[in-house]
């Protein structure tokens, strides 16, 4: 187990190098001169040259990359162009809001998705199964922002149970989490159903029944654990997608998360903020996938690294 974890950890290194490289090159890939953009449109030649010098843009690329990575490791991602504050502080306050939102949404997706998927699979082709699958299709096809608006309209405006927007109180959390978690729940439900159906017809399930195991334990002990691997993969991807994809939900509910920070920064051409946010999100994504891989091994001891 330790060796597996270590190996998997080492495997993230090339990914991390790739991520930092791409993020670093963004600076050079955007149209125009980064120094020109940073110095502003009306800057004089000298000002631009000064900026270029300050940013180290006159150094050879490898040196610039090394400096970038070196600074990033020390927690220095540069300063915001708009207000001059350190990028890390700007991101830091927003980061946890988005992580919290994504975390609760994922939790809701897992809970609802697993329940629905298991019920569907054990009652295949029954009216309950069809109802759940149609419902899941709805959940999957509904655009987040629309669902969010509908929830606000009903729960916040019509019956006034929950706040329209904001962040901080548990009540304020409910609607955004439902909005963001629904699509994930639908995907997980469908995944769980098909995975369970496959497992339920395996020989070892028959063995368990022949042993006298109660049907409930046949499903939750013998079948579910085998069916979970593809589901865990989806959960991991889902969580990653939520981090980046929470932008619309954050906008609808006026939540000051990372998503909104990035969108605002793009609008204001606040380049270091965009760069820093992308880097942080990418790192988080790598981390989540690493955790998913580790959990495979807990679920099924057969999984080995090649």
């Amino acid at each position: 187990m330790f060796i597996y974890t270590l190996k998997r950890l080492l495997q993230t290194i090339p990914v991390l190098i790739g991520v930092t490289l791409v993020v670093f090159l963004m600076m050079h890939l955007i149209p125009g001169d980064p120094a020109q953009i940073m110095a502003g449109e009306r800057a004089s030649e000298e000002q631009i040259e000064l900026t270029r010098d300050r940013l180290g843009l006159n150094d050879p690329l490898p040196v610039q990359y090394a400096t970038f990575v070196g600074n990033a490791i020390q927690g220095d991602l540069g300063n915001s162009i708009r207000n001059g504050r350190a990028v890390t502080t700007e991101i830091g306050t927003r980061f946890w809001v988005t992580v919290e939102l994504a975390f609760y949404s994922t939790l809701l997706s897992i809970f609802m998705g697993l329940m629905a998927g298991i019920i569907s699979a054990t009652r295949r082709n029954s009216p309950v199964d069809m109802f759940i699958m149609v419902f899941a299709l709805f959940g999957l096809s509904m655009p987040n922002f629309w669902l969010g608006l509908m929830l606000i309209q009903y729960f916040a405006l019509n019956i006034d149970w929950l706040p329209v927007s904001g962040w901080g109180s548990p009540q304020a959390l409910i609607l955004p989490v439902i909005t963001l978690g629904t699509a994930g729940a639908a995907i997980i439900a469908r995944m769980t159903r098909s995975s369970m159906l496959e497992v339920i017809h395996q020989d070892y399930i028959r063995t368990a029944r022949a042993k006298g195991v109660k049907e409930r334990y046949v499903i939750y002990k013998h079948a579910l654990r085998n069916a979970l691997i593809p589901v865990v993969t989806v959960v991991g991807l889902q969580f990653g997608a939520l981090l980046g994809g929470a932008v619309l939900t954050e906008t609808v509910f006026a939540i000051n998360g990372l998503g909104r920070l990035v969108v605002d920064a793009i609008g204001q051409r606040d380049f270091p903020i965009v760069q820093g946010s992308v880097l942080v999100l990418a790192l988080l994504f790598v981390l989540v996938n690493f955790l998913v891989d580790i959990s495979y091994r807990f679920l099924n001891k057969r999984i080995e690294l090649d």
Partner: protein
Amino acid sequence: MDNTNTIIKVDNLQTSFFTHRGEVKAVDGVHFDVPAGKTLGIVGESGSGKSITSLSIMRLIESPGRIKGGNITFNGEDLLAKTEAEMRSIRGNKISMIFQEPMTSLNPVYTIGDQIAEAYQIHQGLSKKEALQKSLGMLELVGIPSPKARLKAYPHELSGGMRQRAMIAIALACNPQLLIADEPTTALDVTIQAQILRLISGLQKELGMSMLLITHDLGVVAETCDYVAVMYAGKIVEYADVTTLFKQPKHPYTVGLLKSLPRHDIDQDELQVIKGMVPSPDDLPEGCRFAPRCPFAREMCVNSLPDLRDQEEGNQVRCWIHTDEWDGPEVNVKDDYDYGYRTVEGTES
């Protein structure tokens, strides 16, 4: 056969699958009993209904299959009248089953120890610790080397033969009165087959169990069984004690099966086979189900299905040849099989 000594009696068992194409009769009126402490072999080709028979006894037929009729009496109790909860307390406890595929019959995510211990936890209410202790004893009993380490092993860490031994340990954990072994050696290497077979027979005698051995391999039957039921297309065509079956087979299908065994005592240029194929259960012949492949078939065979009739010493056979109604010349099924004769048109294969 004396009824008091019968551990399980299957009477007119009918199990069908209800598909969109209509009813498929997988098991169609099967009778047999297993005397206490003895082994009954059920022999037949794939699709003859032998596995469905064994799953019916366990009441593990899954939808769209259903036990349509008949009786299964185990120790004087009607199994078909039991509730699901009552059946659960019998499965893995009084009646156990070993399956054909050791590679896939164990749950890949739990240790061997956990899977054996589960039987004790369910049926004897033991704690995990006590159950594992007893599981260790079972692993020793089935001859798994270094059992203590194997207790913590996962199925993928064991070979096929070792996994089948683990399966046997699970099945025998609670000292069942009846063991159903469904092709227990078919998926194993030939050298391992003999070992596993010897292990099962040895334990059967040691523990005084009765056994129902499902197989297509007459060699396995000869080695382990006391009685044999030969199944063909959902029905039993011959029932006999093992000596009589091999010495004096009465049904042409049994003879055909025996003749298709490779022989080592004479030089054979080619293996004999029974011509044709087992009829599909959704399209069964009207008369004797073996008639289309039988070298002796006459018009009466094609038109009407014979009953399973008593022969000497409790043996039974389902064939017109052994009845007074037989309208053909006298036949010695065993000796005349190779020459056979076909007098009915349309039965030529």
